[in-house]
């Protein structure tokens, strides 16, 4: 077990991350990279070592490779999210094999907060980790809730594990990544007005690049897809002064 601690500046202590990956070099390089960006890192090689490290580190997040020797990453994630672990509040970002859709879906169903396909871009991983850390900070109670399996509003279904939108007659209506994130932000805060700035803030975690005008574009595309006539929009309403609100009862399946 290689442990390196690096406290980033004064004030609040740097978040503590547990990296679980069986490749020694990736483990070391990733630890160095994350530390350089102000995180504390403990790196272990498999689920057994991870279990041993967990009680001592006060970890905020686990970066978990799903392909592990011995106990698989999915089994470990299942245990982690079960009441038995007493660790269900810890953020979880999975590293999945490229193209292994099923691993990703099962992982998200088990309650992982995000995933990165391997080989990943280190900066993108860092951005996602920060987004997960921030969301965990946003709503402290959220972690104790079971993962959302689906949101339903106005007949439509939004399925977060497969990141897809289903029409009232169960036809999948494809959406871009940005549109999906925007819709999630609106659905999670249904019947609350969200200004463009708030939406930008909520989405920045995932979205790279300029997204200012893109919000309006994405809203108009979403309205088209939701068959919500732009001029008399009933689902996603425009609020005077520059904001949007999802006007619908949202049911949440745990």
């Amino acid at each position, binding site marked *: 077990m290689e442990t390196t601690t690096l406290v980033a500046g004064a004030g609040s202590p740097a978040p503590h991350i547990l990296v679980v990956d069986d*490749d020694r070099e*990736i483990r070391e*390089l990733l630890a160095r990279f994350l530390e350089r960006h102000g995180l504390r890192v403990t790196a272990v090689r498999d689920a057994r070592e991870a279990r041993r490290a967990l009680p001592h580190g006060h970890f905020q997040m686990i970066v978990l490779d799903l392909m592990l020797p011995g106990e698989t990453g999915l089994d470990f994630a299942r245990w982690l999210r079960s009441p038995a672990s007493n660790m269900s509040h810890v953020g979880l970002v999975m590293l999945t*094999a490229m193209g292994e*859709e099923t691993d990703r879906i099962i992982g998200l169903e088990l309650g992982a907060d995000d995933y990165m396909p*391997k080989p990943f871009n*280190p900066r993108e991983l860092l951005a996602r980790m920060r987004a997960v850390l921030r969301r965990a900070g946003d709503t402290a109670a959220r972690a104790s809730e079971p993962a959302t399996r689906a949101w339903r509003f106005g007949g439509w279904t939004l399925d977060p594990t497969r990141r*897809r939108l289903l029409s009232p007659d169960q*036809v999948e209506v494809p959406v871009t990544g940005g*549109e999906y994130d925007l819709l999630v932000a609106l659905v999670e805060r249904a019947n609350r007005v969200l200004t463009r700035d708030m939406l930008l803030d909520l989405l920045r975690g995932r979205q790279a690049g300029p997204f200012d005008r893109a919000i309006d574009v994405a809203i108009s595309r979403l309205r088209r897809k939701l068959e919500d006539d732009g001029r008399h929009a009933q689902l996603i309403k425009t609020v005077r002064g520059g904001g949007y609100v999802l006007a619908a009862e949202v049911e949440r399946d745990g």
Partner: protein
Amino acid sequence: MTLWPRSLGGRTAVVLLASLALVQIAGLTIHALDRIDLLTLAETRDVGVRAMGIYRSVAQAPPAQREQAVHDLDLRDGSTARLQPDPPADELPQTYQPVRRQIAVSMQLVPVPAGQRSRETTMQGGFEDRRVIVGMRFPEGNWLNVMVPMPPIRIWHSMNFLVAFLLMTVAAAALTLWAVRRLIAPVATLARAAEALGRDVNAAPLPEDGPSEIATAAAAFNTMASRIRRFVQDRTFMLTAIGHDLRTPITRLKLRAEFMDDNELRRKMLADLDELEAMVAATLAFGRDVTSDEPVTTVDLTELTRTILDEAADARPELAEKLTYKGPNHLTVHVRPVALKRALTNLIMNAINYASGAQVSMSEPLKGQVTITIEDSGPGIPLAELQRVFQPFHRIETSRNKETGGMGLGLPIARNILRAHGGDVTLGNRPSGGARVTVTLPV
């Protein structure tokens, strides 16, 4: 020949119905001939017996009173009799020989007092004339000329018979059609199964029951399907293994690059690694697409296409104006959405990379399939390349540059995916210049 149907069921039905018609015609003919024989026999006997009956009645009287006997005859069947010195005049044609013989035979059956038998007999007329005139000479020398009506033979005497025959024919035809349909059904099932296998290599096996030939064909089909499945699994396994082995070194390199101090060098190295990753992803996609364990779901094809264009426009806003869609607003298809999106993305991104624009149009569904056309205003595709571009790792020589990138797997992957869905993709050039990609997909 338009009467010869295309389907096996239609052909079998035509052959069987034609045979049925032949058998029925033969049956009717035999019945008619038999009936003609029988009626001929009955009527000739009747005529003979009646003529001879009249003769006997008259012959029993003494010769002097025969005129009175003829006069006293009570003939109720329309027959007439005359006592004349001569045989009947040639009023009608001579009776047809076989009929004449039969009448003569039946005349012998009537008992006549000894010595009174007719010494000579003439006969004229027949069925066609509706009567027969028989001349019989008494031993005394004068003639008794008798006319007996002879109705023509009616073959179709009974309405019941015709109705029954018609019902029987219709019932046999209906049974034939039903049986043909039942017998042919497994062939259609086999065709459907073959098509389903094309869409989904893990399609459920055929039931191996029914007639022995069909069961054998189903078993052979299932064996073939399982061989294809195993082959495809082996290939996927190998490619996945390669991809898995490569992702670790690529990940390491990407991490190492982050520690390089030279920003320009790091940027280039990361770009190279992204390209390498894209190649591995393409190879994996090429190995996987057909075997993908992605389930088939119902997807709005229109929105799938527009989403691809929207994503391209987001990535390159300067081209947004040149990315257009024309066609129906909603069109539901049963596909593997991730795979199909990859196929259409490859085709649309080709147009964007080579021609900086793509005009996508979609047809209304016609004869169970929808056509998507992707057109651009670029240089087009040389004729010699139209087929070759679908070969894996083949690239048009002039396109080997950084901007267009790629490994020459985009089109083969797109075609594999589309064919696995029961569709296809073809390339061509527009008359006005630029390439045209035509995609068909069953709906």
